[in-house]
């Protein structure tokens, strides 16, 4: 065999490295602090000051790393073999964490805005000045709103300290909490939860037949799924067969045995047809269905009578009927060691909730639930909670959701969705705020590690919302686009400079792991725990004074006892008085050797001394196979009924189909002259959070618009040409990458680029921002952002 791939060929042949130079320019905002400008890497030496086990935060996976510190500098991050979840690996982003730590653009000091909102003009202040400013503004607003604590919105991105911030929100007493769920996993997590009891893990290590539909595990890395999947599928004996269903030819498709270019948004029809074959040919596990299903007969009748045949699905999905039939047969022949992968992604189509329900039911028809090679519930090692505070404020209004004026049975009760989840619907909340539909004014906003300007559809609307907030406090590590609109910026230290709350990771191989501080916080940055300690010391008493003024219940309580006693229930400082290390020790105090092990290995699970084993030079085993929790509930779902729920009547009461049903409006052909826009992830970037990383920037300078090669030729668009993409929401500019890996009526580019914060050396105006173009379309159940429902026009500029 003779293969001609060289560095030079590579440079010519791929997108990643062909564009010379970057559009980034250095900016003046933090120029005084910029040192050395372009960063360099450090060669590791012979001796280290210390090796610190920690957890990565370059994405949400929390893989275990060992940080090497030499002369006080972190010189290398290596994988930590003791953590079962991350399988002794660190991806490109994990390795590049050093560049996040030493990013010259980091937020270094507390700042207060001096220019217009969004202008990026701030003055450096002391922590006390920042807290004082927040106090004055907060007290003013609360006084004017007569102690309606809900006049403040709290929002947070995913992370190990998210709960610390949420504790502040709870103590503050607002009802307005928004997190990433409605732009993330809301529909898949809830649909699996309602159908089989939880959002399960997939045992991709032992499955022999795997369908990955709309899940790109080679590029959107999830641990341990990515490693287990490809090691299994591409093992010497090709142990597992992989079917990749994706409108786009991804790196996952490149590893598959079969790639099916499904029409976007039609996966539900595909699954319903697989279900039809399985039921009509009686391929399902009859014992399993008889013992573990609720409503199977009705579902069967529903599938058959609606005629969800492979021939029917072929017309909708574009996948031929014979292939659908074959896949259903193969899947059921391999079941229970067959997985229709639940996926871990945002909502793409409006029917996503029903799609996930149909997938869960199809999976269960083969009996692949709570078993090796199927979907796994696993075990979780218990850890103790910490101090929280839930004071009751008489004048705190309910969450600012908008209900329909009249409830009609069988219809959604809210204007935008049927169900309001804990994380809320970001788009619905924002749009209602802008349209003045909320029943009381929300005037302030605390934002932790969250970038709503870039992270959700319709950037222009988010900016408008942030401009209207009288007080925006941002706690972050980087001067993101959202931070640019802040009134006060509180700089958090990066993950390598702090100890975070200990976390327990459930699964077939459960473990507890900790993010240990590697080096002390640089500049004047602090962990969020310390930030909230300082902030609540400043806020707590003056805010209580406002409560005393307006809250008749509190007034009565003080009459009955004393102000001191009543204040004890409202003392916001309580949850933030201990160090994170002390709290962590308390969390694992049920396990006698946990503190020592967590300090030494970063990981703890009972029997690790006996179970952990090195298999080869570079491979390890954390649990022997016989000790893994593949089966914990005798193969039954963990719904309250211990059955798979095919039909959920309570959904129908709120206008949601009780059983997964295809509706004609779910698919429409692309309008002539327009394209369907997709967004997605990349193995070298995590959303907008790492596009300013100089190491990762080496791997992919900027994002590119995938456009079909033949279409591009017709339009006179060549590789690297700048094009403008526009929709009803707005427009963005991006360079073109003509390729045959995408259909003629579709275009794609990865999320996280095209940022407008001038304080970001590498990310500023680099590439295109998908959310400037994606319209704020919601799916009807939770109001989650449906990100693939937008059509765009393209123009060469």
């Amino acid at each position, binding site marked *: *065999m*003779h*293969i001609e*791939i*060289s*560095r030079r*060929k*590579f*440079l010519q042949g791929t997108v*990643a*490295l062909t564009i010379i130079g970057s559009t980034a320019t250095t900016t003046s905002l933090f120029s005084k602090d910029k040192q050395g400008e*372009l960063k*360099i*890497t*450090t*060669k*590791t030496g*012979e001796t280290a000051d210390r090796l610190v086990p920690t957890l990565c935060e370059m994405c949400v996976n929390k893989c275990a790393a060992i940080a090497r510190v030499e002369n006080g500098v972190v*010189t*290398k991050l290596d*994988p930590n073999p003791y953590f079962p979840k991350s*399988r*002794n*690996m*660190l*991806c490109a982003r994990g*390795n*590049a964490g*050093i560049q996040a730590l030493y990013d010259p653009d980091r937020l270094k000091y507390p700042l207060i805005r001096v220019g217009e909102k969004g202008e990026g003009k701030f003055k450096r202040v002391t922590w006390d000045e920042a807290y004082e400013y927040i106090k004055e503004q907060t007290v003013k607003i609360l006084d004017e709103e007569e102690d309606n604590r809900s006049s403040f919105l709290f929002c947070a991105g995913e992370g190990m300290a998210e709960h610390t911030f949420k504790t502040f929100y709870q103590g503050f007493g607002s009802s307005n909490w928004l997190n990433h769920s409605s732009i993330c996993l809301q529909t898949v997590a809830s649909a699996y939860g309602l159908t089989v009891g939880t959002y399960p893990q997939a045992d991709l290590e032992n499955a022999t037949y795997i369908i990955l539909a709309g899940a790109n595990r*080679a590029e959107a890395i999830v641990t341990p799924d*990515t*490693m287990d999947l*490809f*090691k299994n599928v*591409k*093992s*010497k004996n090709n142990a597992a067969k992989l079917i990749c269903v994706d409108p786009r*030819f991804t*790196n*996952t*498709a*490149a*590893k*598959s045995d079969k*790639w099916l*270019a499904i029409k976007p948004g039609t996966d539900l029809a595909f699954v319903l047809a697989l279900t039809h074959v399985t039921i009509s040919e009686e391929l399902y596990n009859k014992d399993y269905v008889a013992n573990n299903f609720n409503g199977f007969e009705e579902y069967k009748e529903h599938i058959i009578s609606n005629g969800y045949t492979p021939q029917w699905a072929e017309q909708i999905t574009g996948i031929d009927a014979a292939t659908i039939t074959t896949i259903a047969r193969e899947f059921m022949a391999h079941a229970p060691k067959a997985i229709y992968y639940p996926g871990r992604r945002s909502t793409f189509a409006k029917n996503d909730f029903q799609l996930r329900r149909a997938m869960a039911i199809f999976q269960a028809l083969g009996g692949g639930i709570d078993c090796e090679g199927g979907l796994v519930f696993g075990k979780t090692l218990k850890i103790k909670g910490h101090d929280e505070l839930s004071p009751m404020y008489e004048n705190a209004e309910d969450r600012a959701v908008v209900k329909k004026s009249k409830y009609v049975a069988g219809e959604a009760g809210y204007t935008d969705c049927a169900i309001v989840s804990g994380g809320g619907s970001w788009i619905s909340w924002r749009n209602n705020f802008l349209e003045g539909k909320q029943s009381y004014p929300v005037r302030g906003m605390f934002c932790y590690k969250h970038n709503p300007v870039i992270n959700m559809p319709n950037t222009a609307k988010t900016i408008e919302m942030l401009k209207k907030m009288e007080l925006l406090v941002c706690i972050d590590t980087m001067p993101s686009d959202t931070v640019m609109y802040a009134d006060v910026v509180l700089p958090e230290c990066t993950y390598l400079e702090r100890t975070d709350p200990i976390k327990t990771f459930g699964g077939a191989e459960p473990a507890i792991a900790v993010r240990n501080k590697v080096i002390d916080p640089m500049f004047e940055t602090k962990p969020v725990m310390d930030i909230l300690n300082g902030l609540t010391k400043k806020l707590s008493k003056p805010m209580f004074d406002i409560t005393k003024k307006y809250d008749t219940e509190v007034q009565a309580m003080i009459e009955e006892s004393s102000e001191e006693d009543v204040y004890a229930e409202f003392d916001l400082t309580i949850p933030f008085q201990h160090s994170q290390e002390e709290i962590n020790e308390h969390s694992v105090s049920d396990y006698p050797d946990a503190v020592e092990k967590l300090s030494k290995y970063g990981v703890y699970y009972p029997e690790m001394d006996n179970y952990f084993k090195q298999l080869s*030079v*570079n491979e390890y085993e954390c649990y022997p196979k016989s000790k893994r929790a593949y089966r914990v509930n005798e193969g039954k779902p963990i719904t309250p009924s211990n059955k798979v729920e095919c039909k959920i009547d309570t959904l129908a009461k709120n206008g949601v189909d009780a059983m997964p049903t295809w509706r004609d409006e779910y698919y429409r052909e692309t309008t002539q002259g327009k394209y369907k826009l997709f967004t997605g992830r990349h*193995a*070298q970037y995590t959303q907008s959070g790492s596009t300013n990383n*100089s*190491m*990762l920037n*080496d*791997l992919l*300078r900027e994002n590119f618009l995938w456009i*079909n090669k033949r279409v591009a030729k017709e339009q006179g668009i060549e590789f690297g040409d700048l094009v403008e993409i526009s929709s009803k929401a707005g427009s963005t500019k991006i360079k073109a990458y003509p390729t*045959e*890996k995408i*259909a003629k009526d579709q275009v794609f580019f990865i999320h996280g680029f095209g940022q407008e914060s001038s304080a970001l050396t590498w990310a500023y105006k680099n590439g295109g921002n998908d959310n400037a173009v994606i319209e704020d379309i919601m799916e009807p159940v939770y109001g989650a952002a449906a990100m693939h429902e937008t059509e765009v026009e393209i123009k060469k500029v």
Partner: protein
Amino acid sequence: MARYGMALDYKKCINCKACETACKEENGVLLGADKHRIWVGVKEIEGEFPLLSIASQTFYPSQCQHCDEAPCQEVCPTNATYYGENGEIKVDPDKCILCSYCMNACPYDARYVDDRTMTVDKCTFCTDTRLARGETTTACQNTCPTKVRIFGDLDDPNSEISQVLREREYFTLKTHLGTKPKLFYLV
């Protein structure tokens, strides 16, 4: 004394580039898109949508082949390029005059210029970083999510690499040139 080589279970490669970043951080490789010791080769996809060739999108992780008969060493006029004690190809920055003969001679395009040391640099199999302090894996091997790489001593019949090369089919790149490369692609 060993004879270092590397086997690549390349079909497991997902082109995530963890190897490239680990290499840069470990060995202090300059940033800049063309400054890298490791890369993943990808070809343009064959076919027209949706009739595409999956096989045409195989990923080929690559780096210096540490040839037993290294053309770069042969052409070096100052003996800056030399064989290390374990068969790895090394560069002495003090002797390198940046004539770039080695860059032209290398059939694998494995060498690049380090602008700081003004040396035509290359992969060292981490012999002056990780292995020098007693570790047994290279940075690229250690970090790889799907465990593509097996590094070790080809002269030790009991090493993992020797075993895998006895048990599995493999090919080497540009074998016909007689460079005797020590990167082995497992089929």
